[in-house]
């Protein structure tokens, strides 16, 4: 069934389809990252393809290979009930230049998946409308799913924000004075006043 998809892809895009295989019933096409968006748009719009749902997008790190990362996209067609795995290889050995076009304008649902891949694997999606970290915090250093990120690495402490950065007064006033509220847990104050 989806064998036909692979054949059509090879016919239509020729050299841009670097390799294909169907291992264990999963049809896979590795395509050149330059034509990533063009191929995606074709897969969505062509009536015989009709991949209307982008199920998943992630990346895998292979430090030994020369394009180091594989961006893996899983597609599904609700009407045709076929699936396709689309891959593109990006990035050099140091993990730099890991860039690929965004597909958020093809499948809007990929927005968060691309943010997650950027966050955890450090792949930059060119043209993404809102490429922020999603699962980790903005001050996080590095991309933890890369194989050269040690699993037990500690992150530096995030410094306190200044009042200008936070935009609100940060010195909080105690909600009540030492003489108010519950008496327990306030022995410090009691000792200070010599009442014990």
């Amino acid at each position, binding site marked *: 069934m989806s064998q036909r998809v692979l054949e059509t892809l090879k016919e239509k895009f020729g050299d841009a389809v670097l390799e294909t295989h169907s*291992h*264990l019933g*999963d049809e896979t096409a590795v395509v050149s990252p330059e034509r990533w968006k063009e191929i995606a748009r074709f897969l969505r719009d062509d009536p015989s393809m009709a991949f*209307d*749902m*982008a*199920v*998943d997008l*992630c990346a*895998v*790190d292979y430090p030994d290979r020369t394009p180091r990362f594989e961006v*893996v996209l*899983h597609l599904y067609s*609700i009407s045709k*009930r076929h*699936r396709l*795995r689309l891959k593109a290889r990006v990035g050099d050995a140091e993990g730099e230049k890991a860039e690929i076009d965004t597909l958020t304008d093809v*499948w*809007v*649902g*990929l*927005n*968060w*998946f691309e943010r*997650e891949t950027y966050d*955890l694997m450090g792949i930059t999606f060119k043209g993404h409308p809102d490429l922020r*970290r*999603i*699962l*980790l*915090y903005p001050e996080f250093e590095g991309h*933890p*799913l890369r194989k050269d*990120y040690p*699993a037990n690495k500690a992150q530096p402490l995030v410094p306190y924000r200044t009042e200008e950065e936070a935009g609100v007064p940060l010195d909080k006033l105690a909600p009540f004075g030492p003489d108010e509220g519950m008496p327990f847990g306030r022995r410090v104050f009691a000792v200070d006043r010599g009442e014990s």
Partner: protein
Amino acid sequence: MEPIDLDLEESELELPSEPMHLNMGPSHPAMHGTVRIVLELSGETIVKSDVQIGYLHRGFEKMCERGTWNQVFPYVDRLNYVSPMLNNVGYALAVEKLCEIEVPERCQWYRMILGELSRISDHLTCNGAMAMELGAFTPFLYYIKAREMVWDILEEETGARLTHSFGRIGGMAHPPTPALKDMCRNAIPAILKLVEEGEGMLLRNRIFIDRLENVGAISGKDAIALSWTGPCLRATGVPYDVRKAHPYLKYDEVDFDVPVGTRGDTLDRFLVRLGEIRQSARIILQCCDRMPDEGPVNVDDPRFVFPPKRDVYTTIEATIQHFKLVMEGAKVPKGEVYSYTEGGNGELGFYIVSDGTGTPWRVRIRPPCFPITQGLSELINGGMLSDIIPVFGSLNMIGGECDH
């Protein structure tokens, strides 16, 4: 009496209208799960919203790359902690697909029974919690009582109520107990009765209906574009259910329907979940009729399956096999596979890459909640502040799954 003559411009009579910013969460009493929504409000209407997740991120995928294939099971339990058995089975099926092994028939039925029980508990929790957040506390207690019955069965079977870690590559940790079928047959009618009573209290309540109907509606086309799956997608009228579209285990041999909605609003999501509870009950009863009482549960494959404990202590072969499986892990053949099952919230996918050793090279989970939570912002924009509670409740965001 003279009319008050205010010497004011027309614009000065209006209330100040600059937008107000409001933080909802990350820990909000009316929202289950830790999610933060930064809202820009104009009066009570939401102008803009930014949903921020990640408060429960525990580095699931990184952790998986450090242990053996079997050591992933406790982690997947903690993804969707309301229906951990579905995750266990989903991951086991993914590894088995890569190893090209198929579990015996008895195990397939057993996995279906446990999985559907988990699905019932998932939907009960979602619907009950949503009703509770809207102020209907009593139906929540009914649903939790029904969930307790489900968990009692799971406890009897697996030894744990919440995090079972019961799946294994090539089978299950234990064979079914002799009492399983009777427990299911006794509990299912009681659960359905409780569901019906809770439903009667809610769906005849004008206030409840008014707060759900036509709130947070989405069209089927938009839902597909947002990669929604599961009950939230089916509520829009798209009958996509992995169990029907691409049957795994024995789902092609049992008789069940796929409940779908029409408008895709919050009420439809509520009703679809209720319908699925009934269908799951049907599946469980059919499985109970068809599961053989005798026969193996695990595949007979020493590369993946632990030998019986008695043999480990008495024979040298089994001792070595056990040692190698524990210390080195099962050697999963080199390759990659994407396996998908119907989880509590939709398509639960596992994309696993193996380099031929006992440790996974990459375990990627495709959590169904993740794209669904992505759509939350679109659903609440333009709506009222108070509508966030039912809409968010009906999406059933599970923090552990969404944040990996």
